[in-house]
């Protein structure tokens, strides 16, 4: 396999009795990338991930990791794959050190490398203080870290993480995201699922939006925005606002060519614009020049949220 690992999901289909869980799912991602897999609960994220991880067999379609099929040659791709389920419900009466040692043995790491590998992972995931604690007594956050440590034990090139930050407190979530970013920078291809959009918008380089088993959109965030042709939304809040001042602000915003869809707020206005952060900065400087006393100027909502709403809106309307 080459240094750059590429994962391609091709026309994946899977049904459970009368439920068509996954329909013609196609997307791809590669090393150094964190690919978000977004969808509501029951959208088909976990099923797809289990198929990619060789745990489930699809009715049709294939998953290729560096052109090796996960379906017909699962044993060949398993050494480069790491799957982290959404919840670690591990063995009772087992310590963290025994747990990691067990998986190191299960992956047949040679004895001279085993302990050093475990030590590295424990250091990386920050589990040192929990090393001699029983697994079932760990909090959700620590369990997720342990689960990540388990996944990393055989140093896989592809990580499939099913809602790794679900149910975690903000600090633990930030910590998990930080670890994932380091892993992506270390040339790992990471697929991460979640239904919490803000969470994914913070760390993902590209996303696939799935709805009722079907892919609605896939690609990097910029390309998705272009596809939507919607622009980014910004809110402006004024000091001691009144109706006259907000009216004035709205009129002024409408005169700026990059700006679209100006709407009134209690203390200011919101607008959408096309372009990058430089345009946003220019708009701010323009407003200051016009002597608007601005107390707050920020992006309203993530572009990923907008993308998700936009791509799943059509489906909901059709259903209605």
């Amino acid at each position, binding site marked *: 396999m080459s240094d750059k690992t590429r994962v391609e999901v091709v026309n994946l289909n899977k049904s459970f*009795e009368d439920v068509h869980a996954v329909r013609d799912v196609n997307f791809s991602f590669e090393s150094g990338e964190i690919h978000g897999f977004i969808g509501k609960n029951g959208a088909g994220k976990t099923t797809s991930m289990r198929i990619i*991880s*060789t*745990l*489930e*067999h699809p009715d049709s379609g294939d998953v290729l990791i560096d052109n090796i099929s*996960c*379906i*017909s040659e*699962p044993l060949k791709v*398993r050494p480069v*794959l790491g*799957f982290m*389920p959404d919840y670690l*419900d*591990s*063995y*009772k*009466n*087992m*310590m963290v050190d*025994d747990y990691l*040692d*067990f*998986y190191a*043995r*299960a*992956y*047949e790491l*040679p*004895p*001279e490398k085993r302990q050093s590998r475990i030590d590295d992972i424990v250091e990386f995931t920050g589990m040192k203080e929990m090393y001699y604690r029983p697994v079932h007594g760990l909090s959700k956050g620590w369990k997720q870290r342990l689960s990540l440590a*388990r996944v990393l034990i*055989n140093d896989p090139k592809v990580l499939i993480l099913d809602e790794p930050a679900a149910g975690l407190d903000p600090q633990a979530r930030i910590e998990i995201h930080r670890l994932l970013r380091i892993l992506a920078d270390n040339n790992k291809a990471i697929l991460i699922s979640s239904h919490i959009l803000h969470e994914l918008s913070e760390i993902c380089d590209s996303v696939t939006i799935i709805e009722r088993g079907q892919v609605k959109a896939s690609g990097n965030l910029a390309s998705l925005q272009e596809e939507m042709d919607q622009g980014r939304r910004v809110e402006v809040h004024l000091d001691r606002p009144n109706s006259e001042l907000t009216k004035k602000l709205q009129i002024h915003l409408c005169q700026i060519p990059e700006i679209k869809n100006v709407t009134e707020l209690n203390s200011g206005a919101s607008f959408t614009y096309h372009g990058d952060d430089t345009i946003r900065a220019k708009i701010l400087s323009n407003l200051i020049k016009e002597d608007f006393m601005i107390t707050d100027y920020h992006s309203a909502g993530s572009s990923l949220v907008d993308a998700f709403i936009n791509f799943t809106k059509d489906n909901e309307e059709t259903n209605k």
Partner: protein
Amino acid sequence: MSASLQKTFRYLDWKINAVFIKDLRIKLQNKTLTIAFMSFLALQVITVGMFAAILSRTNSKDTEMSMFMWQAVMCALIIICGALSPFQALGQFKSELKNNSTELVLLSNLNAKKLIRGKLFSCWCSSLLFISTVAPTLTFCYLIGGIDINFAFFTIFITIGYLITAPVVELTLATFKGFMSNSIVSLLVLVAKAIFPTIIYTAITSELVRSNIINDELWLISTLVMLGLMVLAFFAYQVAANRLRSPFEDTDTPQRCTLLAISSLPLLIYLPLHFILDYMGRISGSASTWEFLAIMAVISSGIFNIGLIFISNTSDRIPPQRKVKISRHGLWQLLMFPSVKRLMALSLLANFVFTTTITICLLLYPHNSLFYKIICLNLSFFNLTGCGLVAHETLAKWFFPKKHSKISPATTIIVYNLLTEIVAMCAIIISGWHKPNFDLPYWTIIALSPVTSVFQSAGVSDLGHWLLLANILIAGVACIFGLIFAYIKWQEGREIFREYNEINFTQKQSKELTDAEN
């Protein structure tokens, strides 16, 4: 020297089964093992102390009491290591399967067989620990004079046979869907597993001591039985590994139907034959020589395993963990059975061999030995398992088509077993507790039903006779249902199999054409 030793240890440390190490560590950190171990030691101390006190008061060497003491300790060993410990392993394994820990393990370099092997080794290891503690009791009993070395080692030998087999069977049961879901059923299974071998064990050893027949011939036969148990353990191990590789799905798919058709064929051949032969056996009245039966037991177990060699290459579904190859040859197809029905079909096959043998013996030689009854017991188990599974498939499919996959075959087997046991028990009660026409106590006979009804053809009351007939009838009805079911499935599957062959043929042809063009 030390370098090479170190190298060897490092190699062993690398190659040793990871699951074995993990399970052993869990066992050692679990208080249950310590409590069981301490209790067993305490039991030995109390038993030996109690008997020592009695003996010192009577001031004589009571050989019967010594034998009884030895039996008590060995029975406790069987209950702890043969029932409680494997049952705990079953529970643990079941929960691991339920919380998907096992599938994460299977993603590593460990495969299903290594996983089962690791679990078995850890169970056997703890059994070994318990067995090693009986040495003081053995010495004490030997010194009193109730048992000789030959008898002591013989009993340990057959106990080890059971202790090797029991965990394999338990782990196999754990791979069956919903086996632990019903707590009452689980409890009944545990009680049955604790009582059943204890009764048999006590019966065998008592009979041996009474008849004083520990000789070379008995060693030979017990070796054969041990061999049979090993074969059974290997069978169960194969089934468990196959079940693990296969995802736990019960829905009908083309592949499943294809193999169902293949498995239905032996069922179609077997069921009428079984019923006729079994009924002939029941009406013939008396038994035959047991040596021949013991040999046949080993042979039929062998048949199980020959089938398993082929079965390990196939599955009802094509799981991602392995490839599937369906043979085009009719003879090999017969031996390819799908998942649950794989076990059923094999049980039926073995049952057929047993029944045929017993029927022939019944017709040729009049005999009524204990060993014959023991073999009948095995037959009874296979009979009930096979019929229970057939009944389950038929009833679940016909009456609960939507809930079919949710009904556990294991529950049905146990319900079916209980039903036949109740009928048999009523028959025995009514026929008169005080008029046994055979050596074994009645509670053993309850476990032996319905095949033991062969022994009861004489000396029972009318009502008892009718109840025994009802027992046979239950098996008969299950067989008839199964026959219809098998026929329908056979037809259905044949059709799909034909399509499958056509598709394969077309694909092969198109591939050949492409190759030729290239």
